[in-house]
Every structure is written in C-alpha cells, then in structure tokens.
C-alpha cells in the first residue's frame, strides 16, 4: 500500500522488520522466505502496533527502524515527533518519548549496550537520549549545527561519534561529549524551501550555523526529494576511514573522514540513489536507486567483462520503461 520506509535485520538474522507510513512495524521470518515476492504474500507477517490504543483516530508514519544489539528491542522514529522502543519479549511498547518538534527521520542505538540513543529530526536537531535517566522526556543532550532537517544518522558504534545527513546538503560528524543540555540562542531560519520538489537555494550554500557544535562538515553530495542515507565504512576493510552516501545527483559519494575530500564518486545510475551499503568484509558496495536497479560495485574486475551494466541499460524510472514496453506491444 505504502512505500517501505525502513528495514532492519535482527542480529541473529532470523527476523526482518520493516516499516511503512503507518503505525505498524511488520516482522517476517527471513530464513523461511523465498526470494520471489509472491511467496511473501503467504508468509505470516506479524504486526507490532506502536500507536496508543486510546487514540484510534490518530495515525502516524514510521521513518526509521532499528534492532538493538541483543535483538530484544526495536526502536522507531515516527512522524508524530516521537521515539518508541518496542520490547519483543513483553510484546509491547516499553518506551515512548516525545523527542522533537517535528518528524523523527532517524533514530539509532549508539553502541552495544542499548542504553544510548541518537535521534535526528526535521527540527534541525540531533539529540542524545540516555534511557537510564529519562526524566520529564528531556534528552541527555542536544547537538546544533545543521540548518535543515536531518535525513539519516549512523553511529560509529563506540557510543561517542556519529554522522548525520541533512537537507542543507551536508554530512556532519558529531562528538556527543560536545553536546549541550539545551538549545542556545534562537534556532536560525536562513531560507524557506521544500526539498521534495525544489532545488537547494544558491544563497543558502554558504550559510553557517552560529552555534555549530559539529567536528567536521562534508560537502559535495546532494540531498533532495527523499531521506538520503550515509554511513561509516566498515571497520574490517577500511578502519572506518570513509563516509559513503547516496545522493540525488545519481552518484554514490565516498568522503575521507580525516581530510573531508571526496575520494570517489560512483557513476552509473539514472536516478536518485537513496541508500547504499558496503559489505562488512568484502570490497563490495551495493547501491539502490529510483531507477529500479540494485547495482554492485567491486574493487577489481575485468574491463572487458560483458556482464557489467552499460549505458544502454540506464533508465531514469522503472515505470517509463514499463510504459514503453506497453506501447510497443
């Protein structure tokens, strides 16, 4: 019915949770599912209900789903400005936090313990939550610096550093020890635009936040129309040296964490690249695009390999292709 907004795989790889623009997260057993989607129709997809029973009238969408490292909890960020934690053993929502002043587009566990959460929102703020002291729904800390809504957050995994992607066309690197207890000064509003159907205003490219608490800013990619995702590269093969991100200008960008340089741009896709993933051990990246392709990039390969995707196979939309086929028939 609606777009799948996020997926999460449990640490033991038995369960796949996926969310959509509704208050329910669905869970399916990965090991028993066939690859073809029609088999999924017959699978039992358990629903985890996140809305309040009291308020049947109100409904919200979920933008972010994550399993805890022990696989016992699921945390979600939703369009009701809230973070919810679902306890899978108790089969109910155990934590509800009215976290932000706008949609919570990203939420993730900070480290292995599951005590710390990072959240990012369309209110331009990243917040740190300590579940051991959630007094009066106040965050452990706030990080200011972004000029527009946050689209994604990825933790370095050490409970200390994370990166956020933002509609102000930047990725920022944060140290949670630099967070402040409250927001200093008034939140700046430099420009008025909607990233879903407008290009980023030129005069906004050089604006800076007066209270920027970030360690570093990475520029060059484009964040338009959808919640584009960025990640640290894997520990095993790169020592987390890089940040890689999808982009609405149809490239995968790879930045060097230390220098801020754009190290590589992966170019083939014909439409927005919303998500990409770097294999934890092998030298492989897979990118997913609105052109309908999942594409695989490798560190080595024969230049004459005939199975490589060519420009002839490029397209901007899977629908345009289907439509053309109908006309030909």
């Amino acid at each position, binding site marked *: 019915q609606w*777009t*799948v*907004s*996020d*997926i999460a*795989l449990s640490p033991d*790889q038995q369960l796949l949770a996926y969310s959509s623009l509704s208050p329910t997260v669905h869970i399916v057993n*990965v090991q028993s599912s066939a690859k073809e989607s029609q088999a999924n129709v017959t699978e039992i997809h358990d629903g985890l209900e996140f809305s309040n029973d009291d308020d049947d009238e109100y409904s919200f969408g979920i933008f972010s789903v994550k399993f805890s490292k022990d696989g016992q909890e699921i945390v979600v960020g939703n369009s009701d400005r809230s973070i919810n934690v679902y306890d899978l053993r108790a089969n109910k929502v155990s934590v509800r936090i009215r976290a932000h002043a706008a949609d919570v587009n990203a939420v993730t566990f900070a480290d292995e313990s599951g005590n710390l959460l990072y959240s990012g929102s369309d209110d331009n703020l990243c917040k740190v939550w300590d579940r051991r002291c959630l007094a009066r729904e106040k965050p452990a800390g706030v990080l200011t610096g972004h000029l527009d809504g946050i689209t994604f957050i990825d933790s370095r995994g050490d409970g200390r*550093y994370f990166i956020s992607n933002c509609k102000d066309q930047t990725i920022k*690197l944060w*140290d949670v020890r630099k967070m402040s207890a409250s927001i200093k000064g008034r939140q700046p509003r430099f420009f008025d635009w909607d990233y879903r159907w407008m290009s980023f205003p030129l005069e906004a490219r050089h604006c800076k936040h007066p209270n920027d608490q970030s360690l*570093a*800013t990475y520029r060059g990619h484009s964040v338009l129309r*959808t919640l584009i995702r960025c990640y640290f590269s894997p520990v*095993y*093969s*790169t*020592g*987390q*040296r*890089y940040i890689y991100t999808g982009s609405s200008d149809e490239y995968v960008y*790879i930045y060097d*964490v*230390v*220098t*801020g340089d754009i190290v*590589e741009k*992966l170019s*083939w896709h014909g439409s927005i690249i*919303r*998500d*990409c*993933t*770097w*294999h*934890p051990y*092998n*030298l*492989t*990246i*897979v990118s*997913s*695009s*609105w052109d*309908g*392709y*999942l*594409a*695989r*990039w*490798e*560190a*080595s390969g024969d230049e004459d390999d005939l*199975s*490589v*995707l060519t420009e002839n*196979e490029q397209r901007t*939309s*899977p629908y345009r*292709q289907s439509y053309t086929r109908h006309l030909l028939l």
Partner: protein
Amino acid sequence: MGWKRKTHHGGSCHQQQSCPSHGNELSAIDEEVSHLTRLKSEPCERTRASLHAGKKRHISTFKLLSGRESNCLGIGRFSSADCSYALRKHLPVKGPWCVDDMDSEAYISQFSADGSLLIG
C-alpha cells in the same frame, strides 16, 4: 618473549589540508577522532620508521609487503591498520554489475552484519 608495540603518546596529528575550500571547516576537526581514525587505517610509527617513510609521505604497497617479509613489526603479518592502508588503492568503484532489476524504485539496500544477506 612478549612483543610490545609502541603506541602514540599524545603527539600532534598533522592535518592534511589538501582541500583548501574545506579548510575552514576541517581545520576545526577534533584531534581525537582524526587520531583514532588514523590509528585504524594507517601504519604505525614503528612501521614508518623501519620503512624510512616520513610522517606525511605515502607508503607504497610494495614497501609494505617488503616490510612484512623482513618482519619489521615483529609479528610476521600485517596489522589491521596496515591492511586498511593497503586497501586504500582498492576501493569498490569498478562496475557496476546488476544485482536486481525491479519494476519499482529501490529505496533500501543493506547487508546483514556478517555480510551473508543483502536486503533490498
């Protein structure tokens, strides 16, 4: 006989300002995260010293391999940081190959934690 690796004790990290347009923002980068990242992705000072490579000089893969063969680290193999450094020249940028060709937009692609599954 236990081998002890010398660790970096608070020496300064020299920032590489090879991208002037980002200089203002990156000159403020925290020493610690830069240092931590270098520790996990660049050869240690002992390796550099044994290969006669200065602090900022690029070390070729050949030199890394010859250093390993002469056992300059004392452990007879690459450290994980050495591996990461050697792989700097081998990022996954070739291709692409087709994993799937769908009749709708692809919103998500994620590997599982052990890399055995791809969800998209």
